[in-house]
């Protein structure tokens, strides 16, 4: 680390208090994500929440198949890798064998909404006491930006070069709304990464999803609208504007379900 300040009138850094530093639950390694990919932000938010709740020593993360396939290396918690889309099933097993542990899955939209749609639906229907972080970037990022179930109508991807035609390829899948109507779900929220304010809201949502699990209320899911600058062929800031202007109208933000016990805490 190098102190990147040369101003002489500045008070010494020792006189200042640290207002932000790397969370301890985030491993000291560099991520493989593309520049500007919001996966890094979401990793940090999850790590901050684990730190704040003080559950690092008993947390187990389940990594998906997709861009976040190495997520278990980036968190300073125990982790394992699930087969494509099967992270909720693996989390179910872990939670039932070790009910005192905090289990979270970290999944992308190709993993959770497509091949793992069945798994998440039934984990929610069973009311499994786990936390699901669902990163929705509207395409299959790892394999080169193919069309995913969450791709927006008319959106150009490598496998829909003329844009997603809803007549033949259907409409985007709204996972959070589907899960919110299930009685086994304690917390369902959709958040976004497109601005600093939204990132702060996302952290609160992730915290509630973890608290739902700690209190044993049921499944907590946070869907996070995320950017994919490389496959969207945009620069990182432009892709955040794309989320705000194009993704948010299709995937409305907000809390779709909050368990009564989570509401009381303000």
């Amino acid at each position, binding site marked *: 680390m190098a*102190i*990147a300040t040369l101003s002489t009138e500045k008070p010494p850094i020792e006189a*200042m*208090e640290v*207002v932000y530093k*790397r969370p301890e639950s985030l491993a000291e390694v560099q991520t493989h994500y593309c*520049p*500007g990919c919001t996966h890094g*932000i979401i990793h940090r938010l999850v790590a901050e929440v684990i730190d704040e709740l003080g559950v690092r020593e008993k947390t187990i993360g389940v990594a998906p198949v997709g861009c976040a396939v190495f997520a278990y290396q980036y968190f300073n918690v125990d982790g394992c890798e699930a087969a494509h889309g099967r992270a909720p099933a693996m989390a179910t097993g872990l939670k039932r064998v070790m009910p005192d542990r905090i289990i979270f899955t970290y999944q992308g939209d190709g993993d959770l909404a497509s091949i793992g749609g069945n798994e998440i639906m039934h984990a929610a229907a069973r009311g499994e006491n786990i936390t699901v972080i669902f990163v929705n970037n509207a395409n299959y990022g790892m394999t080169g930006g193919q069309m995913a179930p969450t791709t927006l109508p008319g959106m150009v991807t490598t496998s829909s070069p003329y844009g997603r035609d809803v007549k033949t390829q259907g409409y985007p899948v709204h996972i959070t709304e589907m899960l919110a109507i299930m009685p086994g779900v304690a917390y369902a929220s959709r958040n976004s990464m497109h601005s600093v304010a939204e990132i702060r809201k996302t952290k609160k949502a992730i915290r509630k999803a973890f608290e739902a699990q700690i209190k044993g209320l049921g499944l907590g899911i946070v869907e996070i609208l995320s950017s994919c600058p490389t496959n969207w062929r945009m620069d*990182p800031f432009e892709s955040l504007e794309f989320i705000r202007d194009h993704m948010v109208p299709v995937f409305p933000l907000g809390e779709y379900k909050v368990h009564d016990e989570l509401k009381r805490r303000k």
Partner: protein
Amino acid sequence: MATRGTVLIDSDRCKGCQLCVHVCPQGVLKMSEGYNAKGYHPVMLDESENHCTGCAVCAVICPDVVFTVFRMPVKRKGRPARQALAA
């Protein structure tokens, strides 16, 4: 505006995505001319025109946890600084 805060930049982690440059309310971040070990132009603090306030907005949006943010303890009337309380 008087100096109120600063950031420590871990240049080798930076991937040069410029998200922090876009969101910095003081406009004190810019991309450096040189390269880091990964081959990106890392972000740097340039306080020639304005000063960092330690608001930590850059740290919130940074995907690679490049920033450590420092701020001068706030002195309020009739109340000792937070740092003094902790000591």
